[in-house]
């Protein structure tokens, strides 16, 4: 039993290392494309955290949607822009200052929220599959959000079709 807990702690700290290091690479990388690839490891590390919190479905969603979908979209977006950081004007000193201020402000907000939180702890339960429970809740208690999500997706698709059309029309 103790060995299992130690194994979980080791996996947790290794995942922490992967997330923090890859996030730092993503922030400080000179080329946007390297930043995007580093972001891949950050997102996968987040999935690792979800696994460790016994949220198996959420972890798979994280990989499928974020690492598999959004990151690919991001990469295509970068490859389409065909510009380096210098050309985009991100290398300017004012950008760094503005970014630092915005980051610090966000950090302060986060600290405020974390300090305000009550942090209820539930006793640890053995890890069980959550997918079926989520499905049952989606069909009963959270039916309206479930159906609204399909309408939201419809809106997103119409929006994307519109965006693409405008780009093509140029």
């Amino acid at each position, binding site marked *: 039993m103790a060995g299992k807990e130690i*194994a*979980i702690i080791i*996996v947790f700290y290794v995942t922490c290392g992967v997330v923090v290091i890859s996030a730092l690479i993503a922030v400080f990388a000179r080329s946007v494309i390297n930043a995007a690839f580093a972001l891949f490891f950050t997102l996968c590390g987040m999935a690792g955290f979800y*696994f460790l919190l*016994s949220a*198996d*479905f959420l972890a798979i*969603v994280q990989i*499928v*949607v974020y690492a*598999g*979908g*959004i990151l*690919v*979209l991001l990469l*295509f*977006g970068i*490859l*389409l822009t*065909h510009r380096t950081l210098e050309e985009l004007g991100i290398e300017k000193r004012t950008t760094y200052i503005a970014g630092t201020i915005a980051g610090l402000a966000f950090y302060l907000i986060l600290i405020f929220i974390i300090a305000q939180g009550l942090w209820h702890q539930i006793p640890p339960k*053995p*890890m*069980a*599959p959550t*997918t*079926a429970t*989520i*499905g*049952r809740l*989606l*069909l009963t208690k959270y*039916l309206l959000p*479930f*159906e609204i*999500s*399909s*309408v939201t*997706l*419809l809106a*997103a*698709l*119409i929006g*994307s*079709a519109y*965006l*693409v*059309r405008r*780009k*093509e*029309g140029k």
Partner: protein
Amino acid sequence: MLYDFANIVVFLVLTGVLVFGTLLVGRLVRTQKPTPEKNTIYECGEPPFGSSWVRYNIRFYNIALVFLIFDVEVVCLFPVILVLQHFKLISRTLMLVAVGEVAFFVVVLVIALIYAWHKGALDWLRAPESPYSVEESHNPE
């Protein structure tokens, strides 16, 4: 349950060891005599010119956007489909209601798909009569 994911971790670690171990062994074993000629990017024997950062066709982005939406649809549908069998065991009408709920979800997205299809978001090469047809741009140069 956690051990099932431990399998994945072991798999990931072994993959990393295999890939980087092979590269490391190769680096240790091989001789290194680099020349400027050898260090150039291979381009079928031609001297390479220009940036290798080629601009992609915009349609890749387009398809990725549509893909993302149906990706999320699968995420929403997957847990629901798992419980349908369970609902059937409770009562038949309950299952039919659930199927109806899922069907509504799917129909809305089918409408979305038809819209995207109609607007040409899925076309790889646009029809010539389309008002948005532009020059084909697989060659950026």
